């Protein structure tokens, strides 16, 4: 960056620091801080930034200095015992007995003994013998106009240099210690001098508005969840009521009510999950169970041949993780529906598979039903066309025959995607009478399912189905809210 631009973009603390620096002499940061009136922390930061911009030269040096010890700090505050003893004696007329002096001065026994010995040695006091010995000032002390040791300690505390002799005495008494410190000093380099000159001509700091600022991670919905929520809202808007969608259902709803015979290969272990615990659930109303049984065995009154085998209630009671949403439609029909009525579910389904880019063992399905006397195959096609518009944003549709065990006729819906060409959007059909009649439904029931996971992948632009349940926080943070 140009020198001028860089100088313009300096922050306040950088500017103040730059101005306080000198050309010839290295200045320590503490001193610099005092001079610039910028706090020491900010000065340190400013110097680091200025160095990065190549405006200053830094010097690091080890320096030894004298510092107070804990005891030293204490004495700097309340005075040294020997000096306090003299002051105390002066306060009580120059003479006092031992306990008097001790109490007045606030000495510990140890401090008193030390002060007594010290002052006696220096001839500042004398001891008057007797039953109660007394201490008396000698007058020597008054003659000495030397600086008190407390003053010295205070000077050291504020960083002033003192004579070696005095400091050695204090060191021996454990009141001061010598420490080595790394001192950072700085001075302007030639670019810094140039910048300083330029600063005079610049009035205001210009921000580097192109510069990087910290990224803010906002709270937001999971992208696939947002997609599912929108789909659900849309269905409610076009008149569908959401059905209950338990994760665990009986085989009765998952298979039997849907007229899947009990020996059917799709009911085998390899195609659906089964539960070890709990094992069996409850069957619905006895009347419904009897009709389903009869329909499987001989067609009951549905006009069907039935599957011609002996139906077992025990198999129907077995519980399983829901394998497809149609189980919820069957359950809803058994529990009662409004006619005309529209119902839907967006629900988790489970199938054993090897998880890869195209398969999940746990996924979502979106399904629904429309019940009314007026429903027929042409209406089914009309409904599919509406879904193409609502969910794929196109009315370019193609229909093809399809097969589901529980619908007849069945129909596949394909829509034209601008990039992918014709893609399958869903499957549909009219529920078989063998399904509807035993559940007490005499009207035709249109049933539809949309491959919601596949649709979400297209919308979210992802190739690997596992990403719908992404465990990558960065991906979630970077996913866009608006598509």
């Amino acid at each position, binding site marked *: 960056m140009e020198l001028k631009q860089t100088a313009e973009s300096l922050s306040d603390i950088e500017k103040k620091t730059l101005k306080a620096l000198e050309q010839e002499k290295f200045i320590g940061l503490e001193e610099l801080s005092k001079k610039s009136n910028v706090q020491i922390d900010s000065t340190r930061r400013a110097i680091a930034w200025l160095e990065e911009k190549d405006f200053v030269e830094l010097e690091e040096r080890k320096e030894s200095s004298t510092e107070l010890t804990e005891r030293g700090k204490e004495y700097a505050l309340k005075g040294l015992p020997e000096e306090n003893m003299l002051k105390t004696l002066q306060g009580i007329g120059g003479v006092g007995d031992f306990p008097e002096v001790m109490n007045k001065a606030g000495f510990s026994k140890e401090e008193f003994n030390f002060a007594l010995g010290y002052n006696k040695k220096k001839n500042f006091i004398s001891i008057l013998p007797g039953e109660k010995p007394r201490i008396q000032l000698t007058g020597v002390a008054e003659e000495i106009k030397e600086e008190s040791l407390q003053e010295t300690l205070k000077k050291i505390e504020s960083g002033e240099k003192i004579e070696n002799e005095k400091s050695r005495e204090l060191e021996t008494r454990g009141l001061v210690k010598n420490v080595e410190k790394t001192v950072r000093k700085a001075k302007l380099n030639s670019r810094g001098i140039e910048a300083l000159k330029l600063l005079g001509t610049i009035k205001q700091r210009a921000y580097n508005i192109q510069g990087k600022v910290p990224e803010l991670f906002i709270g937001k919905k999971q992208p696939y969840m947002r997609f599912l929520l929108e789909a659900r809202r849309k269905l409610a808007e076009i008149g569908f*009521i959401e059905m209950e969608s338990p994760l665990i259902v*009986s085989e009765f709803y998952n298979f039997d009510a849907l007229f899947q015979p009990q020996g059917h290969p799709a009911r085998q272990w390899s195609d659906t999950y089964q539960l070890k615990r709990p094992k069996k659930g409850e069957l619905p109303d006895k009347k419904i169970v009897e009709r389903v049984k009869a329909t499987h065995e001989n067609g009951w009154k549905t006009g069907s041949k039935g599957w011609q085998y002996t139906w077992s209630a025990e198999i129907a009671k077995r519980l399983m993780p829901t394998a497809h949403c149609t189980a919820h439609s069957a359950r809803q029909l058994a529990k009662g529906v409004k006619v005309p009525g529209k119902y839907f579910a967006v629900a988790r389904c489970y199938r054993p598979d090897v998880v890869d880019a195209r398969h999940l063992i746990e996924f979502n399905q979106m399904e629904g039903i429309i019940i009314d006397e007026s429903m027929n195959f042409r209406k089914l096609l009309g409904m599919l066309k509406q879904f193409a518009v609502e969910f794929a944003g196109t009315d370019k549709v193609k229909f093809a*025959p399809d097969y589901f065990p529980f619908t007849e006729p069945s129909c596949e819906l394909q829509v034209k995607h601008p990039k992918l060409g014709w893609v399958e959007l869903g499957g549909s059909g009219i529920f078989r009478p063998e399904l509807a009649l035993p559940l007490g439904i005499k009207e035709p029931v249109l049933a539809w399912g949309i491959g919601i996971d596949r649709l979400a992948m297209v919308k979210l632009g992802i190739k690997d189905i596992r990403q719908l349940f992404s465990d990558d926080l960065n991906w979630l943070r970077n996913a866009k809210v608006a598509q």
Partner: protein
Amino acid sequence: MPSLEASKKDLEKLVKKKFACKEELETALEFAKCELDSIEGDKLSIGVKDTNRPDLLSTEGIARELRSRYTKDRGVPKYMVKKSGVTLIVDKNVAKIRPCIAAALIKNIKVTEDFLIQMIQLQEKVCLTFGKRRKEAAIGLYDWKKLKAPMHYKAFKLREKKFIPLEYKVEMDLEEILLEHPKGKEYKHLLEGFDKYPLLLDSKGAVASMPPIINSQLTGKVSEETKEVLVEVTGYTQETVNTALDVMVSAIAERGFSVYSVKIKYPDKTIVTPTFKPKKVTVNLGSVTRLTGLDLTPKQAKELLEKARYNVRTAKGKLLCEYPSYRQDILHEVDVIEDVLISTGYNKIEPAPVELACTGSESSEALAMDSAREICVGMGLQEVLTFTMTSREKQAKKIGLKENDFVEIANPVSINYEVFRKNILPELLDFLGKNKHCLYPQKIFEIGKCLELDESKENKVREPVKLCVVLSGKGAEFTVIKSALDALCKNMNWEHSIEDSNISFLEKGKQGKVTIGSKKGFFGELNKKTLEEFGLEMPTACFEIET
């Protein structure tokens, strides 16, 4: 959905029509409920959607369904069946093991590569789907020139008979085949519990096959030199084996080869197979118009059905239909009505709009979830989505719980998905463990169902919807998570009370139990042991509560 290999030229020859472009072929295949998966030169891959139509599992079968749309060859196909004079004698000792058999002879065969590929493919696919992995129907094909009539179907003890199984060079006895031969191992469960095993032999006692396991290398192999083929099907009901035989033999007959019947002599009766006797169904014309929404005259309906290989007579508003014996998918008149629609062509039917006055709504459960979600997003949390199936290790061991009363899968694909979650927290901790390289603080939540055993429910489980919030990073401590919990409760309009707790995965003294009416939950700082279990290094706090 079963997938077939076919040759385009072969298909065109059998349909008697050339398909100019891919789209034309695709549209044609819809008449057979098939879709074109891929086309590479002459090689077609065709998906057969209807798993109840074994007759569509060969080029011959698909061609038969298409030919009636483009030529005058309509209605139930007629195949000539001559008497072969061959008898197949069924011993009474198979009655309890695998009682039923049907057979036919095909003569004047000109074996081509296409024919061989289709026959083997059809045999395999029919056994797999319609035959339910050979259980209900297992098909055998034999070079008839190498066998001598009459044939015998009889069961023998394990060590009693020996033969060279297909693709082997040495003789093996029945036990060796069951224990060592790959097909023996694959299918021996179909004969479990018997001390005798069924064999098909010729009059000289030579073993032709061991149904439903394996054919003999010497006789049970069709090659380019084969001129006459014996087809045989075994199973448990005569109806099923007859249908499978008709599927197989009618496909072969499509190529113009001569079909000869075989007398099956059971201890108590004698029958002749195949018969190709059409089956019957009656359809009300009213049902047709009601279900399709199309105004069809009886004549129109009749013509459409003839294109779908039915013979139809109309009488008093009824369609008296006959359909080919190879079909067994017609249980109800709706199955016939679908064929009317397919013959019409789905894309030639005008869609009619659904105009019903219905008021829609989302479930109250979903709406409550939405409110909680809005609050969490408002608190700056990123929503994540994990699976409800998980491992016991994560749900119990890693968070220091001993409990084992999970809703449990009987046939898990992997131990990573063997139980249903009771809490969301372990899944979110696992999520954080995978994202340690991402910038902190990490603030996440999930709302979703958990499962608990509950005898009082119809499905024996309770499915509470839980909300779990996890904060991780510097400063993620007790006060912060409690603030979040309080904010949630306040905005959800929940009155909550808090009690001391002693939860294994939370830090002592920095945790609590929350109660909101009948709903329960917990909150606090994760303790060091739990963080270590999930490989987390940052301070982490959480709450989880039913919504």
